[in-house]
């Protein structure tokens, strides 16, 4: 297939081409998801070089195991970001013997640095990301904090409870309520979309 033909394929139809070891298909995949993958890695590890290493490891693992993508388990984007997130958390855990981050600041996790110049194709995703960020930042602080510690910090319920000096049940409950709220906000936004 030519690059133009590959660019017309949906993500789910691109993956079999990657599984067949077509490097052009992987280039198209990278152009669609590389930016989001790097951004998530950067958000988690907080360092450009480390984020580059994490993203490279994650995307190479996709290149080498593209056949493992199962469309029943969600979109290619979700699958990809899940792999990147796991690799980034692994890198955090490797990096040190897990310092407890006593000076944790949710705002620091939420906005590590301003956006750099974005390609046009990322504009829509950026707007979606902004809306979702609004939903997350609109959560009560105690809910936002535990969700972000888990998702971006890789901490477990019990680690968070110890870190915040809160009962385990309280941490679990806040996480559940926060996720329910995000789900509800996302549902409202989908309902507002035209057409």
């Amino acid at each position, binding site marked *: 297939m030519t690059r133009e033909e590959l660019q017309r394929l949906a993500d789910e139809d691109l993956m079999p081409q990657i599984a067949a*070891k077509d490097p052009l298909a992987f280039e198209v995949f990278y152009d669609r998801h590389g930016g989001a993958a790097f951004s998530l890695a950067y958000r988690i590890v907080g360092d450009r070089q480390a984020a580059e290493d994490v993203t490279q490891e994650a995307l190479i693992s996709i*290149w080498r195991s593209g056949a493992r993508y199962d469309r029943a388990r969600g979109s290619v984007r979700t699958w990809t970001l899940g792999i990147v997130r796991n690799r980034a958390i692994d890198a955090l855990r490797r990096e040190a013997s897990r310092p407890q981050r006593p000076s944790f600041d949710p705002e620091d996790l939420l906005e590590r640095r301003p956006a750099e110049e974005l390609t046009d194709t990322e504009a829509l995703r950026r707007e979606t*990301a902004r809306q979702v960020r609004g939903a997350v930042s609109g959560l009560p602080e105690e809910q936002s904090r535990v969700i972000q510690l*888990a998702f971006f910090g890789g901490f477990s319920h019990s680690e968070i409870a110890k870190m915040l000096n809160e009962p385990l049940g309280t941490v679990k409950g806040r*996480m559940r309520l926060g996720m329910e709220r995000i789900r509800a906000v996302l549902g409202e936004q989908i309902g507002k979309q035209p057409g």
Partner: protein
Amino acid sequence: MKHPSQDDLVGLALGALDPSEERRVAKHSKRCKSCAAELGRLAPAVSALGESVEQVEPPESLRESLMATVHAEAAEDQVARPAPRRRGLRDFLLRPAAVVGATALLAAGAVGYALRDDGESARTIAATGTGAADGTLVVESEGATLKAEGMGDLAEGAVYQVWVAEDGEVTPSAAFVPHADGTATAAVPEAADGASQVLVTREPRPGLQSPTGPTVLQVRL
């Protein structure tokens, strides 16, 4: 059948369970339709968290490095695919899918014979590197020696791992940590005969049986 609590399902979706809890809840959810459905309902919210980060442009070096690895492995894959028995070189070259790999093999061969004409018993083959990494592989009858330079610093515990590709299989060879000036020398006895490529990847630790990290150096034999 006792179902996990909603708190635990949320914990699983966010990766917030301790390892033993995670195994228990994940195992249950694979068999339980209602819990699997609940995880499915949580998935968009979890995915949204990943999408919610401020978007930053990745460095061009990331794309270059990835594509160098991907194109090299695709070429290796094409070369490694079994051809029909006793297919001639001309037939091989006429296969469109083999063009990239065959061209590389011809180029490497030309270098080798030129050096042999000089009366040397060893072949010196230049490596292709990413970033500042560079090097040569000196192949002799008893084995090969990789001489690398421009190798970047490694995280604690990490190594550069040498791999030898032969018949579509990649096997580990030496692992090394470069000197402070970025140079290193590694014996690669497995590269003496039959090997098609020698690769060097950056790995989190020695002893891995297959590559997981980015390719830093590549030598086509």
